[in-house]
């Protein structure tokens, strides 16, 4: 068993806990006793927060729509399609025809790179996320 420092993925309290893992699976959480936010406590959502990690319907393969259906593809195919279509649409209709929804659920570093992509690569400020929702 291993214990790895993590943060609850639900609300904005930012409770710290250790994820208890075994054989590449999360099998429990242990709230951080010294963290000043949660002081060794968690709510019901926090105690069960790892419950969706190993859900059987996690996405595991890129999907691309072909003849109306989403079908499995390689990363190369999916990423080539994304980069070429976004570039092409931006070229044909202007940067304002593209928009990017960032996420209140991913890390700071990921939010930073995502908005950098929108602004530096695709030249648009059409970047937002669900802060208002």
């Amino acid at each position, binding site marked *: 068993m291993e214990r790895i420092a993590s943060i609850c993925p639900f609300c904005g309290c930012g409770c710290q806990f250790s994820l208890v893992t075994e054989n590449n699976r999360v099998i429990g959480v242990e709230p951080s006793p010294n963290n000043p936010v949660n002081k060794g406590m968690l709510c019901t959502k926090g105690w069960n927060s790892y419950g969706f990690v190993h859900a059987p319907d996690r996405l595991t393969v*890129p999907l691309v729509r072909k003849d109306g259906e989403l079908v499995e593809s390689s990363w190369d195919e999916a990423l080539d399609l994304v980069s070429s279509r976004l570039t092409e649409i931006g070229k044909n209709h202007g940067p304002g025809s593209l928009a990017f929804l960032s996420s209140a659920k991913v*890390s*700071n570093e990921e939010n930073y790179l995502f908005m950098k992509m929108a602004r530096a690569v695709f030249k648009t400020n*059409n970047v937002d996320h669900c802060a208002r929702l």
Partner: protein
Amino acid sequence: MTNSIGEFEDADLFLITGTNTTAQHPLIGSRIINAKERGAQILLIDPREIQLAHFAVLHLKQNIGTDVAVLNGMMNIIIEEELYDKEFVEKRTEGFDALKALVSRYTPKIVQLISGINATDLERAARMYAQAPKAMILYAMGITQHTTGTDNVKSCANLAMLTGHLGKPSSGVNPLRGQNNVQGACDMGGLPVVYTGYQRVNDPAVKKKFEEAWGVSDLDDKPGLTITTMMEAAQRGDLKALYVMGENPLMSDPDTTHVELALSNLDFLVVQDIFLSETARLADVVLPAACFAEKEGTYTNTERKVQLSRKAISPPGLARSDWEIVVDICRRCGYDMNYKTIAAILSEINKVTPSYAGITYDRLRTSYGIQWPCPNEEHPGTVFLHKDQFTKGLGTFLPCEFKPPAEVPDSEYDFILTTGRVYYQYHTGTMTRRIEILEREAPEALLEINPDDARRLGIKNNDMVEVASRRGSVRLKAEVTPRVPRRVLFSTFHFSEAQINTLTNPAHDPVAGIPEYKGCAVNVRRCE
């Protein structure tokens, strides 16, 4: 939050409005209850009988959407009775006369007519808040999700400045952020008007700085579209492509029928997520992402504290971290990105973001987190904001007039529907509905209706009812409860089987663009 969570322990009074804290921020909720146990007072302003109502010394139940009138009324009483902090007003603020002139029209009698709160209670609330030595205002989406959301927030700030309850330990204005990293997403420039640390896109100096940092020449200097205006642009055909990372607008946005039309009208939709969400089902490309346990990264909580989360396990199948996917797409577009680690990305954030300059990877690795602003590596971080002066110098009072919600009940739609969440579920349910214990506790959407209304309409507990607004209708079970006042209905947006945002009004605040989830006109009937 201008304060920190630790400061709850020394506050004398909490003015809590538009936050169901024990359900949505349970660990903060428990701090409030502990504080009450040691003698702090809770002053609750909320239309519903939420759990904190049982701990409150006074509970004002305002009519939905009348917050500005209530707060103006309190300020009027505080000024009339000379209970305001004259020294703070004189030394730290400007615009007091304009505030005084405006709020003087909000007499207790007029506020009672608008808000339904009786004059005696309003007076008591005003005195309690003004006279408390250390008072914290706490609010969440109940304040912001209105067409007057910005005015509501300004009015909270006016009240705090008037009484000097700001810029001190355990005294401040504290919006509670709903998602684990909504603070961070805003801080990192996931907004159409700002880069990281709220540096504005239309400031030429800022534009130049980012052009140099990123090695590009023609950054856009005009504000972009907000989420609501993106959907409008997609429907008009002006927006052609949308790339969604870890969000589910088809469930979370108002008036989902129109959101679906908007998304279907796009030439190209990319969704990057951990599950095939309602939105992902419409996508042209779906990219499988790692979840929080499967990657390293930093997250910023509601008290501005940046904390490091480690990678515990590998992602399932071919799923990859969001940041690795973005790096790959940028490279394929001919823009070189060479980050190998989270530390390398954070180091760039430190360089371009003054408020994050001292929040380095090495410091986070050996601490419980650092609160911004933190301008350099020697700085300990900031526990509470606005200590000796406001960011802009003097704090300006920004008085607001009361404006009614965009939709008010009429003879056809005679109820007002307000939406929120329950303790056991979370947002659009993508994560919590897959967790057995949580799903067992709250397995289905319920419509809260007051017993008097239920009796009049022949609705019993657990009856199927149909709720309709001008935008659509939804069927769900009724929960007959005095938790909601008469003529008010409450439900949640967790359940795709009863998609409550089919009903909600996309009318939004003109400044912040936030939709009016907290009030739309509906009617309700029992299904045969």
